[in-house]
């Protein structure tokens, strides 16, 4: 568990005045990431996307205390591979002595889609880095296009809801489990809205001598059509409806970090969001979609419980 009193002593590492939208969860999670990093220096890479363009507008940078590097969209992990290899090489020859942590950021587009190969390669090679997917379930930086992380039924600008299509027709792919299948030492799901769970996970990941992965769901007021002030509550609602369970897999052992006392219907999560608004009209086909989302959510939860060992 992270200690708030101790965290309050860590100096601020992400400057205000960045250009993220009001209510954007990416700013929140980035600050929490750097808080969790404590007093150990980090080098950060970031895939092209919201976080990158809004924190590093030349000649300014929000990255006050740490080196920040962006090279392209699909290669945050590959780029970090090179940085980490450079660290190992320079440490071997005595040119670097101190401990540095390596954190690679990518959005869901840069992780689930275009950056999947580069991420998979970096994880398989075992570079010591924490890869964080800040997952807002679509290409938000370019204007809300569909990604492999977009959930079924959501309207996006490249698979919009229309007269014959209900928005995205497929369920999202399970990136967290894909990373588990890489047999890396640590994989976790987190959410913007539960700071303690997330900070604890980042701390744990950074303490591990190997590749680690956190998939953090990040509500996006612009792309989800929600109120800026609801970002954190919505994240928690994703957990309480089992849409996005908080869990971690350490050396293959599953642990669910939060089990909702009373399971809420997925409708409670979907309804406040404009991206799902069309699902609540009178068309019976849309009711079927909501039902399928509930079904897959339930099935995944059951599977997760089973993987944890039925506890």
């Amino acid at each position: 568990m992270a200690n708030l009193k101790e965290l309050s002593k860590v100096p601020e590492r992400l400057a205000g005045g960045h250009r993220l939208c009001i209510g954007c969860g990416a700013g929140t999670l980035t600050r929490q990431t750097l808080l969790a990093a404590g007093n150990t220096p980090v080098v950060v890479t970031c895939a092209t996307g919201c976080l990158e363009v809004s924190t590093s507008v030349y000649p300014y940078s929000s990255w006050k205390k740490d080196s920040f590097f962006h090279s392209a969209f699909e290669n945050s992990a590959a780029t970090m591979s090179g940085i980490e290899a450079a660290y190992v090489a320079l440490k071997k020859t005595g040119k670097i002595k101190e401990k540095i942590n390596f954190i690679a950021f990518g959005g869901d587009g840069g992780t689930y889609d275009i950056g999947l190969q580069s991420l998979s390669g970096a994880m398989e090679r075992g570079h010591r880095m924490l890869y964080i997917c800040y997952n807002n379930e679509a290409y938000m930086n370019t204007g809300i296009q569909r990604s492999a992380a977009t959930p079924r039924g959501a309207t996006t600008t490249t698979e919009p809801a229309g007269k014959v299509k209900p928005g995205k027709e497929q369920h999202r792919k399970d990136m967290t489990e894909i990373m588990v299948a890489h047999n890396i030492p640590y994989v976790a799901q987190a959410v913007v809205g539960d700071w303690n769970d997330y900070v604890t996970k980042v701390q744990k990941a950074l303490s591990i001598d190997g590749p680690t992965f956190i998939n953090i769901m990040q509500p996006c007021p612009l792309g989800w059509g929600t109120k800026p002030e609801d970002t954190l509550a919505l994240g928690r609602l994703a957990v309480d409806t089992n849409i996005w369970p908080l869990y971690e897999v350490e050396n293959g052992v599953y642990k669910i970090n939060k089990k909702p006392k009373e399971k809420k219907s997925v409708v409670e999560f979907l309804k406040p969001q404009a991206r799902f608004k069309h699902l609540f009209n009178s068309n019976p086909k849309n009711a079927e979609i909501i039902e399928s989302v509930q079904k897959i959510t339930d099935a995944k939860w059951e599977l997760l419980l089973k993987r944890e060992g039925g506890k």
Partner: protein
Amino acid sequence: MIKPIYSKGKIVAKTGNEAMAEAMRQIEPDVVAAYPITPATEIVQIFSQFVSDGIVKSEYVAVESEHSAMSAAIGASAAGARAMTGTAAQGLALMWEMLYIASGLRLPIVMAEVNRALSAPINIHGDQSDTMGARDSGWIQIYSENSQEAYDNMIQAVRIAEKCMLPAMVTTDGFIISHCMEVVETYPDKDVKKFVGQYKPQRALLNTKKPYTLGSIELQDYYFEHRWQLAEAMNKAQDVVLDVAKDFAKTFGRKYGMYEKYKMDGAEIAIVVIGSTAGTAKVVIDELRKKGIKAGMIKIRVFRPFPAAMIAKDLAKVKAVAIMDRADSCAGTFAPLYTDVAAALFAHNEGKMPKMENYVYGLGGREIAPEHITAVYDKLAKIAKGKAKPSNKVEYINLRK
């Protein structure tokens, strides 16, 4: 045949790939990130064996694609390490996005590149379509005629790249050089290491005392200036190439320039060529000279930066010149080398031009034999005497139409 020049040199038999890997062993970069591709695979295979045997201290990152190879090299270089990679053809094409980022961020990565035809149709043999496609990427391009040059160019490229803060690729022709066993003179490790020197980056992501942001977004307000600075750095790179060559000649005895002039004194007809074909052409020129025909050649070593003013001066008095391209530009007016040579002559010689022809040859490894080059000179001789007109379009050599 290579003759020993350096007093402490060693005469060995090496393929182009082996020669490049040997240079890499002696340079001993901090990080090599690479992905296998014919005909360049051997270079990184040999190098990875050096790593596995503890002969070098370098970190070898066996990435899952060439895009990641260049991305990792970029990361390593930005981190403050000396970084290298190697590739060919499709691999270079897959790196294309990252080539511009390496140069735009002014990262002195050195690449061993083996020239190979681009798909489709898929073909593994030598032509220069791959690197010609990267000619505007802001990479210094150094071509080699044989294994010796490949070895020497690799050693020089590190110094050139780091001095200019520009990435550099050293190339050989696929199979013709990469897989051909030749006599090479290598120099002692100590002397090569001394020549190359230690890498002292101006900035490093791993320098926690001076953290910095790299790869920022720049829009209408700054982007143009930074791209102009890149072009300026490329323009100034010519002096660095020549300085390093001078020091190389002083140290090891072998002389290099932006290009090699072969029998250009008093030449009336000439060809301009890149890579291994120059070796074949030299045989042809010697024969022609025996017959009293004043034939010469310019063999381009450094294609980027392009030595425009120098070439214009050296071709000013030639009556007819054929530009030999081992890459096509698919209905650009002419192929890449011709375009640059013609523009150089036009811009620097007050419009006074020799008669010019453009030949595309050897695509996909198609043979270029002495008789093909002799035929080019025969035509040039007729043009020079006013008995034939130069073609106003690309002509193809040894092609079934």
